């Protein structure tokens, strides 16, 4: 169709293993205690698209808006509508997260709306996952893990940053007063899962399905 290769990568029906599949989170969720300072949930198998383009070009921001119904977020923020969120990753880079299986159709829609522009859309759905941390001690766990200042005065709801996380990296998103999301890479997910269990041990950790 164009000068780029776009094809549907997710099968309609096939067994899927999210990056944290091996941790058996569903099983843990059934066994877990109800009161815990930290509650963890994997928001798995969503559609992740990395969008690149020129933020200063009204045709680009307009095209993104017409395709998604979302304004391009400014630096260090994310915007969300329903199950779709769009996050600033860099001056010319955004992360779009959509419900599982919609990524192919949305990529096509985006490409159509941005036709003729120098842009890039890349499906990275298999390469990362979201771990949601909530609870009264979620912020304490973040303080153990990242050098970035996660105090609400510096990190209000709606902010998102990429930073260090233990000895790996993560995108940290503040989505609700006591709710945070970590966007982590598949290959590092086991390390981060071990780290999070350890860091939240003193507050009590519950897993939510």
């Amino acid at each position, binding site marked *: 169709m*164009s*000068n*780029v*290769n776009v*094809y*549907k*990568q*997710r*099968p309609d*029906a*096939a*067994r*899927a*293993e*999210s*990056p944290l599949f*091996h941790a058996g989170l569903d099983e843990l969720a059934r066994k877990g205690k109800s009161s815990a300072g930290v509650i963890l949930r994997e928001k798995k*198998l969503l559609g992740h698209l*990395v969008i*690149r383009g020129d933020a200063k070009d009204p045709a680009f921001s307009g095209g993104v808006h017409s395709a998604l119904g979302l304004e391009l977020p400014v630096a260090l923020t994310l915007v969300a509508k329903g199950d779709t969120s769009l996050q600033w990753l860099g001056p*010319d880079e955004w992360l779009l997260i959509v419900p599982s299986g919609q990524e192919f159709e949305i990529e096509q829609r985006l490409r159509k709306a941005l036709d003729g522009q*120098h*842009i*890039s859309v*890349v*499906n*990275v*759905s*298999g*390469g*990362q996952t979201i771990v949601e941390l909530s609870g009264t001690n979620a912020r*304490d766990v973040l*303080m*153990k893990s*990242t*050098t*970035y*200042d996660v*105090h609400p*005065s*510096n990190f209000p709801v709606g902010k998102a940053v990429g930073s260090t996380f*233990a*000895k*790996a990296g993560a995108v940290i998103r503040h989505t609700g007063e006591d709710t945070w999301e970590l966007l982590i*890479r*598949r*290959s*590092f997910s*086991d*390390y981060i899962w*071990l*780290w999070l269990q*350890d*860091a939240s*041990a*003193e507050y009590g950790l519950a897993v939510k399905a």
Partner: protein
Amino acid sequence: MSQVNRLPKGGRVDRSQPLTFTFNGENYQGFAGDTLAAALLANGVDIVGRSFKYSRPRGIVAAGAEEPNAVLQIGSTESAQVPNVRATQQALYAGLVASSTNGWPNVKNDVMGILGKVGGGMMPPGFYYKTFMYPQNLWLTYEKYIRKAAGLGRAPLEVDPDIYDHLNQHCDVLVIGAGPAGLAAALVAGRSGARVILADEQEEFGGSLLDTRETLDGKPATEWVAKVIAELEKMPEVTLLPRATVNGYHDHNFLTIHQRLTDHLGEIAPRGQARHRVHRVRAKRVVLAAGAHERPLVYSNNDLPGNMLAGAVSTYVNRYGVAPGRQLVLSTNNDYAYRVVLDWLDAGQQVVAVADARSNPRGAWVEEARARGVRVLTGSAVVEARGNKRVSGARICAIDLKNHKVTSSGELVECDLIVSSGGYSPVVHLASHLGGKPTWREDILAFIPGEGFQKRHCAGAVNGVFGLGDVLADGFEAGAKAAAGAGCKVVEGSMPKTEKRKEEAAVALFQVPHEKSTSRAPKQFVDLQNDVTSAGIELATREGFESVEHVKRYTALGFGTDQGKLGNINGLAIAAKSMGISIAEMGTTMFRPNYTPVTFGAVAGRHCGPLFEPKRYTAMHRWHLEQGAEFEDVGQWKRPWYFPKRGEDMHAAVARECKAVRDSVGILDASTLGKIDIQGPDAREFLNRVYTNAWTKLDVGKARYGLMCKEDGMVFDDGVTACVGENHFIMTTTTGGAARVMEWLEIYHQTEWPELKVYFTSVTDHWATMTLSGPNSRKLLAEVTDIDLDKDAFPFMTWKEGLVGGVPARVFRISFTGELSYEVNVQADYALGVWEKIVEAGKKYNLTPYGTETMHVLRAEKGFIIIGQDTDGSVTPDDLNMGWCVGRNKPFSWIGWRGMNREDCLREDRKQLVGLKPIDPNKVLPEGAQLVFDPKQSIPMKMVGHVTSSYMSSTMGYSFAMAVVKGGLKRIGERVFAPLTDGSVIEAEICSSVFYDPKGDRQHV
């Protein structure tokens, strides 16, 4: 044993909670609220250790971090051992077990003690080095015994059961020290709404206010402390950190605080709790209110147990209800020291005499002491302590300060406790960590913090401000400035009222004169922990060590865990006097982090055990585990190394895996290769510039191998890149080079060629890759895919899309084994299912999983290089005999072209990659073995290259290697030799590096 020195009342200890503990094998009792030092003193324990060098008995001197002697080993079990604990900083808990670190066989009867006494006069500084220097080869032997005899505690031999962690903190104002200045600063900053951290190293906040005689608002100062803490505790943005020592002051107002969370509860932390926590603080402003350390006077035998700091005795009396003696003598040069006299009298003890170096002191406390009948000897000092293992008397003489002389025969008074105070040294350690040279102030006889390179405010005693009212005012002001500087709005507040008291200035007195010369007088100790005497310092200056830094290193003054807390200023003063210069001219040594010792556990935090380093896994990892794979670390990745069957060793497993691939088909998890999605109209041009070869004519649907060089023309990565759309490429990189290459592309795009329209996105983790390799790979793949695999429809170095195992896949027909190969890429979430389907279908073809070792052997048989193994950052494409991969006619000067055309890179005798065939086909050359042309030459031989890869080939039936050899490409057929460390030599023939299927027929079928 009863607590002989415990006063009937007083102190902040809880007498209803007795705690038993053990010191050097004997049981004692103390109270909750005691420090270990307070409890030892309460029990009349005089000797807590033997000195480092002379092995003299030593007792507790101080009450805080500056304690030089009571540095103990704690722990009842091997795994709980902690060295270097100051008894003055360790809270007492039930069952505490402590022992002296110096003193063998025991502190009371020490072998070295006799040596020290006999040889004492013959052990000047530098003794060990001077005496044991020759013969040089015996030093190692000497050192072993000296260290054993000296001892400074020991690390546990068993695994520490505790956990330690780190917390990243950010604040507007970090207040260091919770004495009067720090509390005032924290209060005003807290009230402004600032994010405040207040850290103090002691068990409770209050600092000097916990044992002061002075009142605030007419009430005991501790009431004000309690009120302030209560207010601070209610502020949501204020973090209070007791038992937390600010140990390091680093650049950009980054400070490290070492908090001992549970050390007061027991030797092992309650389950699930971290024992220590390091707070890594980034502060907008710092208020340094570290206070001051009292300076002892330097007189003969001032190290005998029973010599203490004046203020420390007040602390023991007022805070712990402990009187470490009966009959006290004070030797001082200042008014403030008199509080110990009044405290001692209030405790019902006897003050024998005060020796005041001043001629006519008339301050308020001096007069109060006189009024209460204390004998004050003016113009005098204690010149010598007397006693054996404990002070039994003091010799007080009149002294002439100006001429540094004893002017009377003096008198010997009976006493069991000599306390001294030579003034107060601001704790400038933290202020010096970043290089600010402390400044001498003659008016207060002290160094204060020098230039602050950071946004820092000093307050209170550390700032040279001493009166309580002034200290509080200084604290409030610093807190207000800090809060305002951090952008907070300061609110007005009022200070508590302090007493007015007449105080007179001190006179300068550091070393007390003696009738004999310094070197003849009984030892006068300056640095008790390092056994540095005034005579030693004089000797240092006499021997020409005039710089303060040299004096320090010659004598060990201020070394080690002590960091000169007690002795530094006295030492400098003595050195200055000895050289006839002022202290200001002498200057001071610098202090380094850490202020007090930090356990290794706290340094490591949670980065230990399984969390020491991230381990990266592929989507198929679980399957590899189930198959019993052995793993190899490749960067942070865990890659299957080989898949041993029952009873197989690595050699057998690899031979079997190799044979399966050559004969039928094998499967490899290649997911770890770096993968970069490249889109944009200039993508092709960009590839032309970063790869050595040409990309202009690569059609959509095709793939090509590329080499990447740095500017110097040296190879730094390689991989296959496929054209998936006219403006769309998928680049693969080496596993270890993935992040490096991604950064490389971005750097060049962002800094050199921003005009090129291209975007790069890492898809390494998104795609899982499984490689089918071997003559039966086509047949096997055909069973699980809808892609037309016909050799003409899907030729070598092309790719296709289709379903594999029911999952959309991109399949690349490329080969790293030389066999017919397909690399199947699917979204990683679905990879395990696809892998299992292929494995199931592959049973009839003896599909064999293989690991990196087999991959290495197979590729080496084909002469394919591995970046970082066959290259080392010093080889050009031509050195690798890969000139075919260099686009010599590309119009744009691509990265590496100029570099590889430098004269040196064009030499024909450069080390070049060749194959080696050992003459004995059963001998495998060790990788890394150096090569020579003539094995008979004498050592050192002329080395002409080395082996880069070497294996036994079960396919070919002989051993083979790849190597770099000088001018090797022109030496095909010649011999090289590898002389090995065991004396044997392996001889090999230089040959082409392509050993197997040189025409490449097998991968093209």
